[in-house]
């Protein structure tokens, strides 16, 4: 299956990954051959088959709606790894 350069560029864009022209060419070719291999699934008749999204055999795992405060020292350690300003995480303008 061929993935043309416009398609692979679009996939990279959706993936939010900057790729060089060489990378685009290489990944386009590789994804094409992987998708070729994967296409053998079309042989399988799945007309009345339900999907499996998870295999834990559990459903509706509830917990009480209570606030459990996390260790403040660990919270501070987590927060200090980004760019901070006045205790807030700094991000680029969204709009």
């Amino acid at each position, binding site marked *: 299956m061929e993935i043309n350069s416009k398609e*692979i560029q679009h*996939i*990279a864009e*959706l*993936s*939010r*990954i*900057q*790729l060089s022209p060489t*990378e685009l060419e290489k*990944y386009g070719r*590789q*994804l094409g*051959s*992987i*998708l070729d*291999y*994967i296409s*053998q*699934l*079309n042989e*399988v008749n*799945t007309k009345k*088959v*339900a*999907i*499996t*999204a*998870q*295999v*834990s*055999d*559990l459903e509706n*795992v509830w*917990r009480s709606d209570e606030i459990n405060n996390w*260790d403040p020292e*660990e*919270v501070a*350690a*987590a*927060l200090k*790894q*980004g*760019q901070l300003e006045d205790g807030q*995480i700094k*991000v*680029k*303008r*969204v709009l």
Partner: protein
Amino acid sequence: MKLNELTIKEARQKLDNQEITAVALTQACLDEIKEVDPKLHACLFVNEKDALAEAKAADKRLQAGETGDLLGIPYLCKDIIMTKSWPTTAASKILENYIAPYDATVIKKLRAAGAVLLGKTNLDEFAHGASTENSAFGPTKNPHDETRVPGGSSGGSAAAVAANLCLFALGSDTGGSIRQPASFCGIVGLKPSYGRVSRFGLLSMTSSTDVIGPLTKTAFDAALVLKVIAGQDDHDATSAPEAVEHYDQVITDRKDLSGLKIGLPQEYFSKDLDAKVKEKVMVVAEKLVQAGAKLIDISLPYTKYGIPVYYIITPSEVSSNLARFDGVGWGLSHSQTKDLQEFYRTNRGAGFGPEAKRRIMLGTYALSAGYYDAYYKKAQQVRTLIREEFNKAFRRVDLILTPTSPHVAFKIGQQANDPLAMYLEDVFVTGACLAGLPAMSLPAGLIDNLPIGAQLIGPRLAEKTLFQVASILE
């Protein structure tokens, strides 16, 4: 015999009899790491000071009369599991300078049990791979032949156990990442049932198949480790509520295998299988028969769809799970970008290696509008058929025996340019992951001086049976 070469069981006796101390045992491992690891590159991070402090604390507890299966036992942990105040890199440039702010549940449990954490082991970046060559920090070498890979993605952990750098190591298995390196390095590797061990603090790859498990020198040691790390966890809603068994005690309940039915699926022993690999697995089968088990030929026709299903489901979940690495809040972050979109693209383009990029893009494609039904939904339906097929087989047999890998460890660089060839490495190991079943790779001898493993797969939560059979084989 050097102390670092002991099994957990042997070290346990010596510690309890006060023949050795946890500090001496830990020092022996640290010395071995210093001597051997510059060549192997199994470890990404080692902290002597913290390890010796933990060993000292364990010695105190021992002197105070405390007992515990892993009290004072040194181990290494795959660097995709959070370890408080230590780096946790997932072998990725995007997390090169990341320090974990908290401990994963498994690490918390091991600390409480008094196990001594020595450091973090190498892996394929974000556990994407079967050779540890996808590490951003360079490959690990196989202790049996340094020109060959240790397997992956838990290749650092497998090489470390095989080279006696520690008494056991933790790995994670999403599509074979504990069992395949265990096979390549000649040790025991257990992938527990999905949900048996909490995933809290494991950097998510494929949330519907990820599971943490032990790599050890013996099946008994694996039983000891699993007993400590298993159990339901409030922080992981998918963790199994069933009580954890005392695997180390029930392991000896079975003295022989009479009445036990072992299935040999013909799809795993096809005419394409290397004759030498088949011969080694059949030696294991023969031992099982001698111990009283009965071999039964079975068929799992959907086996061949395991890899195509896995390589849709995994990249799809990967593309979602790795979306959080965007340079905001933690990780690699380039500030010289003009807008938010360019900021994301630049950080992710520079931070992720080739295989992570491939998987993110493949998953993004499979989940995108117009393709979802053809790829993701189709894969989930075939996953149902694979799971049902295993469940049906387990109505006829107690366990399934297969090769772990179609061959011994390959040369470093041999498959580096062919991602699809690397995916096919997982041919015998993805099935148990997709179905959530426990599976164990056991050493099955050497082929041209290189180890090969045999795999036992059991019904969900049948770890006990795996341990019993493996221990009789040992």
